[in-house]
């Protein structure tokens, strides 16, 4: 048996290797260029008090999360309970970014499902969403004390992500100097 007859088998195994890796990759998870960069500026009113304006600069000095949600987003509904449980841990405040939503819809949604947010920031036109590179609601950003984005979760946060990714990261960030 000549070695050259093994070549097709070798090629086959290489292709299988590539396909096996490809199967595990999720093309929906686009790496964000914003990780490690300062949180993009916004100055937006809150849902319940339009006179109150929130900006990332105002939140300097603490670790916080920005959870992009909308009442029209189906998976936000499933995620909402997880966000509620995360807030119960008392590790970091979660700010909601109500993305391209109608005020009455958002209020009704929060009245029905509960409001775990420190404050709900209103991005009616979706301009802030674009600045933050949001392309699939829900998305969740982790911002450190210096106002740098440290992590981004695309799609609904689940208990596993909270346990394995968010809690260890936020514990670490809470110990960092502001």
């Amino acid at each position, binding site marked *: 048996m000549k070695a050259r007859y093994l070549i097709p088998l070798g090629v086959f195994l290489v292709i299988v290797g590539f396909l096996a890796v490809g199967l595990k990759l999720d093309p929906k998870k*686009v*790496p964000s*260029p*914003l990780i490690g960069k300062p949180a993009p500026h916004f100055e937006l009113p809150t849902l319940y008090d339009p006179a109150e304006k929130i900006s990332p600069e105002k939140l300097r000095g603490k670790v916080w999360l920005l959870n992009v949600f909308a009442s029209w987003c189906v998976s936000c509904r499933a995620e909402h309970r997880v966000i509620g449980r995360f807030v119960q841990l008392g590790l970091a405040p979660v700010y909601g970014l109500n993305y*391209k939503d109608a005020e009455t819809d958002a209020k009704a949604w929060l009245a029905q499902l509960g409001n775990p947010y420190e404050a709900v920031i209103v991005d009616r036109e*979706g301009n802030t969403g674009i600045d933050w590179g949001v*392309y*699939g609601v829900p998305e969740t950003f982790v911002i450190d004390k210096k106002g740098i984005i440290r992590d981004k979760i695309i799609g609904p946060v689940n208990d596993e992500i909270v346990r394995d990714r968010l809690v260890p990261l936020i514990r670490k960030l809470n110990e960092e100097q502001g």
Partner: protein
Amino acid sequence: MRAVVFALLLLPLLTWAAIEVHQFDDPEQEALYKELIAELRCLVCQNQNLADSNADLAKDLREKTYEMIKAGKNKDEIIDWMVNRYGDFVLYKPPVQSNTLLLWGGPFIIFLVGVVVLVRFIRRRPATDQHLLSDEERRKAEALLRGEDEEKA
């Protein structure tokens, strides 16, 4: 009956609302707009560019592109703006850099491998210009070509 047909003919007018109308100052701006929305990728429906996509985000990004062109931004500035927010993924024509080397170089590597294999294959074949026919066979062949059938001859 005629009234019904006439009413049906008017039906396509309803779709007017969905068409985006953009006014440009000059044809160069319009060409740039068309070029950009063809080259930028929609992140929601990932196999479509901004021009083809009906996703809400694609509409917003088309609008942003239009606004930036109207504001006099050039192509590089608009592409930078997009990449700062969405990363290289937004480009259908990614830049040549360390993590895209295989993407850009792969076809050339495969081409080179093909050339090597082809050259080796050709070299290994026996030379064809000698001794394909014995003298006897050659005579027969020539006779046939002249139209002489040996049996008749």
